């Protein structure tokens, strides 16, 4: 393997944004027929590096070479022309076009008389057969599942003769079964002499597919190991710089039902019934876009059910609004902390009182800024929010510190019910451990927690009861430890539901 020629070589790449060094002398070589995993926390510099490779940024120092030829900096098409293809985390497909049309988009001159679909179709079918990428060339992309769309993206790259594939967090949106299929495709590709760069957070996948791991931290390469010579713990330690232990989960002591969804329908949900008990974490697993947002909006008070009832403490709620939800003692950690959780140009103080400004920090319409500032300072201290001070605009904080402020905002009042929607998405491992331990603490203090996540490891690690959501239907609750990843994966794919087609 090590004798194979180098197909992609990054040498001494340095990129600065103001005083921040996003990439600091990164060197990386990819050989033919090799899968290299690029590992690192958010903010470690992976995205910047890929943007430099694809000419979206110009590096301050360093060079990029593909197949021995240097790539001119700042030309996005140069990498594509040299045979480097990228599959982005967020797909770049046109929904209203067919698979074939999407693949052909941008491959020829705008002025050519026809798309040459006949020849193209034969090639796409051949590629799709050779690489195990099952997808119908005439299907409209809008009607495809997420996994199928990813296959289209890969086909698109292969159609353009990509010899190097770069996959940015490809499994974030896939079920375990789809992930397995993707890995089979990658192994086929590698067998045919292609090379793969696999960007990921998920260590067990990296261990399963990669030959070599390159670990980035704070913009530097901190380690490069063969996967055969390492294990998950060693990799995790390399990523954060210290040995990480997952929080020990003490057995739960479930109490009475604090909140209940009773055969709720609307916003894509189909007769969803869910009990949230005191002192227990309920995990909601599923592939994104299957109704998690509706459940979350319902509990947050953003939407009211079209049919069925929301009950708190045994009584159906009246007018259901976000303010009502806060008043009922529901702590809400939203999925998108930038768009819904915080106001970027507000200070930490102003963000800390977003939910409580009326009851706690104003009197007869006049703000009590001193109390507000004290509240923010308390959160900063108790929740370890790293910031210059409470008057800092929150947009200057890292995602982890932003999330800690949100945690403080919702947990300080001592909530009875906690909704945590993707609470650790995009956070580094240190912050993930912190958020999880806070949720467990709240559980042990008697709160009912609903944890919504697309990360099965997170769900299985923390939850006492797991439900799976698929196409708006909710599975029965499975007790902790009774289901394997594969079992849950089947439910996530829609098998097992009583009314399954």
């Amino acid at each position, binding site marked *: 393997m090590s004798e194979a020629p180098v197909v992609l070589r990054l040498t001494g790449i340095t990129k600065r944004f*103001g005083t921040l060094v996003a990439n600091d002398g990164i060197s990386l070589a990819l050989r033919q027929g090799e899968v290299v995993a690029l590992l690192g926390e958010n903010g470690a510099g992976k995205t910047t590096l890929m943007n430099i490779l694809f000419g979206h940024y110009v590096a301050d120092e360093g060079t990029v070479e593909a197949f021995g030829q240097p790539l001119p900096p700042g030309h996005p098409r140069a990498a594509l022309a040299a045979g480097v293809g990228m599959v982005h985390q967020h797909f770049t497909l046109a929904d209203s076009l067919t698979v074939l049309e999407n693949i052909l988009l941008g491959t020829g001159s705008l002025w050519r008389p026809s798309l040459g679909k006949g020849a193209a179709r034969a090639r796409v079918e051949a590629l799709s057969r050779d690489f195990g990428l099952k997808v119908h060339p005439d299907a409209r992309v809008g009607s495809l599942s997420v996994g199928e769309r990813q296959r289209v993206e890969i086909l698109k790259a292969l159609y353009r003769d990509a010899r190097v594939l770069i996959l940015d967090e490809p499994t974030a949106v896939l079920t375990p079964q789809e992930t397995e299929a993707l890995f089979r495709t990658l192994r086929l590709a590698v067998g045919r002499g292609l090379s793969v760069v696999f960007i990921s957070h998920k260590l067990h996948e990296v261990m399963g597919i990669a030959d070599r791991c390159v670990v980035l931290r704070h913009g530097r390469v901190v380690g490069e190991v063969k996967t055969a010579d390492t294990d998950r713990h060693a990799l995790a330690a390399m990523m954060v710089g210290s040995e990480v232990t997952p929080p020990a989960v003490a057995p739960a002591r479930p109490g009475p039902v604090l909140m209940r969804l009773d055969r709720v329908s609307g916003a894509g949900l189909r007769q969803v019934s869910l009990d949230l008990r005191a002192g227990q974490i309920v995990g909601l697993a599923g592939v994104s876009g299957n109704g998690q947002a509706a459940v979350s909006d319902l509990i947050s008070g953003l939407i009211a059910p079209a049919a069925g009832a929301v009950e708190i403490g045994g009584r159906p709620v009246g007018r259901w609004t976000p303010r009502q939800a806060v008043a009922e003692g529901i702590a809400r950690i939203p999925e998108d902390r930038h768009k819904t959780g915080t106001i970027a140009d507000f200070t930490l103080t102003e963000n800390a009182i977003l939910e409580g400004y009326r009851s706690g920090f104003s009197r007869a319409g006049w*703000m009590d800024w001193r109390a507000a500032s004290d509240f923010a300072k308390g959160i900063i201290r108790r929740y370890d929010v790293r910031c210059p001070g409470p008057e800092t605009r929150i947009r200057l904080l890292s995602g982890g510190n932003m999330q800690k402020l949100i945690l403080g905002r919702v947990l300080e009042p001592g909530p009875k019910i906690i909704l945590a929607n993707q609470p650790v998405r995009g956070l580094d491992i240190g912050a993930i451990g912190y958020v999880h331990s806070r949720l467990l603490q709240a559980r042990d203090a008697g709160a009912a927690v609903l944890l919504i996540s697309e990360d099965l490891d997170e769900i299985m690690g923390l939850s006492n009861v797991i439900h799976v959501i698929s196409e708006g239907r909710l599975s029965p609750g499975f007790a902790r430890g009774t289901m394997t990843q594969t079992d849950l994966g089947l439910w996530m794919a829609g098998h097992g539901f009583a009314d399954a087609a």
Partner: protein
Amino acid sequence: MRLEPIANPSALRRAGLPLAALGLTVVTASLLALLAGANPFATLGLIVQGAVGTKFAALETLNRATPLIFTGLAVAVAFRARLWNIGAEAQLYAGAVAAVLLGTGAITGPLTLPVMALAAMLAGALVLLGPVMLKTRFGVDEVVTTLLFNFIMLLLVSYLLEGPLKDPMGMGWPKSAALIKEARLPRIVTGLRLHWGFGLALIAALLVWVIQTRTALGYEMRAVGLNPQAARFAGIPVNAVLVKTALLSGGLAALAGFSEVSGLKGNLTLDLSPGFGYTGIIVAMLALLHPLAVIPSALFVAGIFVGADSMSRAAGVPTYIADMLLAFALLFMVLAILLTKVRVVRG
């Protein structure tokens, strides 16, 4: 070419760029004067002279600034909550009509002025309420509705001045009857042509600033303006806040009409406002929507108008130079503000 955001703009950048914008405005003004066939250096001097050179000129500038402070505040308040009120002109006329209805003898006594002012604010607020309800209920774009209301209002006033409000003693001119003595805003200093509308405008600016920084409503308005999605999630009643904002904004714009009728003109005509409502947008933008900064911004804009008026008479160049000058000043200032936040990168 791309724009790259700057996380922490330096003090030099924040102070220097607006100054550079002012300098560019002066240069452009000179070029415009040159184009009109006048001596550019003399022209600039004449503008300054005409705006603040004499006591009379300075008072004229303050008088002209008064309605601009009100409309500037109206726009600043609304824009801060991302409510795009382009209809300050209509709300101004609504306030003027209310002032004339009450001030021509309908009520008398010491409370005449406060009642007129309140009625004017109510009228202005009601004019903006319609478009805002359409926005919150049906998602109708308020830019379109408030803008169109300007024309509706102007035609309505035109009808009123030809019909019910027409001055019987007016020799057939489309104007209202004169306000009674008790309905006139007094002068601040006897003998000087500056009425209490100016004082009221300063107080209004202060009050708006207090509302925005010290009250829960101000906090809500800023939150809704910066991120309505997060505001709604946190439990801020976004639509109710927009309605309150509209009431405040419409009321402020209407005070401009009240102050012009009661302080300056003494009656209502169709040329009461030479576009104060629209110019209020420029005033608010130059002030970066800060209520206290609206005062110097309005003084600056009024000074250019008054100064350019006087200059055009003295140097024989068209008064339109004032409009062009303001437009350039705004463009340069907006550009300067953008460039304090981002830098242009090649490639």
